[in-house]
């Protein structure tokens, strides 16, 4: 009951936030120089006034700004995100077509980084004064500090070019005609490099954070009590230390999950992964306003959803947190 009320109030706020985001994005995009008609004419390498006039009229860009805004907002209210100027396809179709690829990539990276990060962090916390603990932390620091695109390129050079173990790019082997299980294995093979690359950075953060908050929790009085009770060290670590150390990690995981739609531009580009991040980058380059606004909308919606989920998970992890406190 409590959850139902909480979710309802959050959803109400979310609608207002989304509406404001749409308006803000609309004007933000208008501020970028260039317009889609001119860019399409430019790519053709030849143009005349007639061509520009046709496109501008077709895209509705000849209308005053407030008319364009009204058209867009009333469209979105009915889940009509308009047409991509450049690709002549409904924006919703384009986004839904690319969404599974992105969610597969970012979702895998999310689970991978969270699980490995917490495990590595716990290990490092348990071995705080041993060389193995320092080694974990050193590695975490390296992955934290190295730019993603460089890691990606080096991974390709090592695993695809020299060792020839893994495919360098794409989501499946073009022309192989795999189906069923073979297709799933093929996609899985293509997923390893980009998902690992994407996971490394967050894994490093989770490792560092898990270790820090576990060390802090280990100083608390209830841990001393538990030890005095005679509990086994492993049980103390898991049930008392780790559980109390989880809250900051949940916060961070919520942030990472919110970026799952638009946060993989670099990885998707380097590995030619056909996801939303690439679509967004290309839409930006081409000033494909409708498409860009549509992707912004979905990203924003996902951030809001995961903020709500994060709040719910807080309550599961720590029953002391209640509405309004």
């Amino acid at each position: 009951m409590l959850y139902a009320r909480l979710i309802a109030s959050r959803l109400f706020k979310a609608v207002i936030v989304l509406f404001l985001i749409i308006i803000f994005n609309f004007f933000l995009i208008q501020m970028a120089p260039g317009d889609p008609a001119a860019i399409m004419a430019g790519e053709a390498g030849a143009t005349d006034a007639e061509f520009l006039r046709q496109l501008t009229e077709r895209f509705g860009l000849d209308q005053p700004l407030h008319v364009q805004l009204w058209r867009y907002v009333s469209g979105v209210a009915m889940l009509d995100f308009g047409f991509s100027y450049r690709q002549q396809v409904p924006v919703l179709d384009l986004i839904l077509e690319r969404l599974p690829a992105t969610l597969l990539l970012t979702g895998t990276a999310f689970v991978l980084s969270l699980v490995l990060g917490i495990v590595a962090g716990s290990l490092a916390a348990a071995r705080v004064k041993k060389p193995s603990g320092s080694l974990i932390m050193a590695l975490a620091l390296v992955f934290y500090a190295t730019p993603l695109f460089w890691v990606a390129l080096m991974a390709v050079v090592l695993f695809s070019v020299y060792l020839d173990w893994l495919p360098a790019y794409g989501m499946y082997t073009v022309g192989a005609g795999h189906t069923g299980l073979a297709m799933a294995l093929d996609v899985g093979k293509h997923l390893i490099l980009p998902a690992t690359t994407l996971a490394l950075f967050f894994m490093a953060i989770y490792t560092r954070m898990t270790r820090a908050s576990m060390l802090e929790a280990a100083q608390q009085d209830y841990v001393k009590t538990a030890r005095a009770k005679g509990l086994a060290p492993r049980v103390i670590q898991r049930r008392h230390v780790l559980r109390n150390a989880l809250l900051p990690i949940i916060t961070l995981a919520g942030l990472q999950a919110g970026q799952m739609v638009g946060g993989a531009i670099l990885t998707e580009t380097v590995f030619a992964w056909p996801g939303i991040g690439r679509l967004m980058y290309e839409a930006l380059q081409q000033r494909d306003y409708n498409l860009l606004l549509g992707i912004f909308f979905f990203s924003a919606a996902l951030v809001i959803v995961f903020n709500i989920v994060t709040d719910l998970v807080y309550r599961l992890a720590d029953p002391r947190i209640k509405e309004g406190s």
Partner: protein
Amino acid sequence: MKTPLAITIAAAALTATSAVAEEPREGGVIDTIIQPEPPGLVLGMIQNAPTRTVAGNIYEGLLRYTTDLEPMPQLAESWEVSDDGRTWTFHLRDDVSWHDGEHFTAEDVVFSADVFHRELNPSARAVLQHVESIEAIDDYTVAFTLKEPFGPFLISFEAGTFTMVPKHIYEGTEFRDNEANNHPIGTGPFEFEKWDRGTVIQLVKNEDYYEEDLPYLDGINWHIIPDGASRAVAYENGTIDVLPYGTVENFDIPRLTEMDNTCVTDHGNEYFSPFAMLWMNNREGPTADKRFRQAVMYAMDREFARNVLWNGLGTVPLGAFGSNAKFQNEDLAPFDHDPDRARELLDEMGYDGEEVRLLPLPYGETWTRWAEAVQQNLKEVGINVRTEATDVGGWNQRLGDWDYDLAFTYLYQYGDPALGISRTYLSSNIEKGSPWNNVEGYENPKVDELFNQAATAHPEAKREALYQEVQEILQEDVPVGWLLELGFPTIYRCDVKNLVTSGVGVNDGFKDAWLDK
């Protein structure tokens, strides 16, 4: 100085001519790259480079052109012109079908030219404004009657510029909203199979193609790989067989061409013959003074750019007319790299060190480096240059609004000065909002007159004389900087045979290609 790559290409040309003609083999699929992903595949509706490259194998024009830009039969078997140069008659093949099985006739030609292209296609409109009427004389004969003779008429029928589209699909519909745009129907050697956006465009063999035995290949996969380094890797690890021009960065080219079983050609680009230029704003600032513009020409070391940034490929142009356009005046005094002469000219005009803004072309690393090289050349002679980087949208807008002093660009030459060259200098072509017209704002009534006369003069000798004269004036006025006729190599595995057979290269070349493995 010749770089190793230029030598490799020259050597390849020698061995190619001495090789014994081999018997082509059937079968096999070629994996190649398209960069960037095209917005759509209906030629005529969309004319950008990636659309031309993929769809040029789906659609056809009435003619093809050799690497010397001589017309070859395609959908038209033969053609003739009346003595006054005003009526062109094309005799079509009678055995051609669209990919959906409908028969191709003269009605399709009339519809494509007179309705479809007149409405949608700015490059075709530039030619069609000289056409008075288009008439189907019978099912397989079409006559074009011109308002006056038009020099470049016969070179305008390339598939990408004057595509033949099916009348039975488009007539009476809203062209841009037609459902068929998602599944293009042409007459070409390959049919559209599948487009997995962001991953691949697949074409398959047209089993009913009208030319005997062609095509040899079973299909073409156009991979879409957004990152330049990843594209190079895809060739290195063997997934990709053919790298069309412009798909890898120039600095990767020497490494790739040194690989085993790798061939390279700089042919297949003659029709477009991209001409890199430096817009110089003729309206205001120091660039409005022609002595300043001449000084820029003397200051730039164009040989260096060619040898270092473009791997020794391409041609440093003498003046406004490139070597692949007709009627080049070879007697013009060249602009050699001469910093002293540049300084003299700047002194003479009293250049006071006013800052000039330079816009690089936002098309990748080579162009950024080129802008740096030019900036350094200009600084050496005392010109105060500031580079202002933009993205493609910003670059379009700045040029369309004439908000620049110097700016890089490149333009296609289309085989004839009346199509690809005069547009840059005609004052009637000054209009805000486009980066492809007379952006520099050059106005010279004499030049206008000569260009306009030359376009419609008849016969060729008259055109020649007029173009020679206009080149002399342009050489003196330097309305823009002439940088380089770009040489874009096509890199491919040596077991891909007969790939580049026309002046547009891979844009229509897969028809003749075969795999020797």
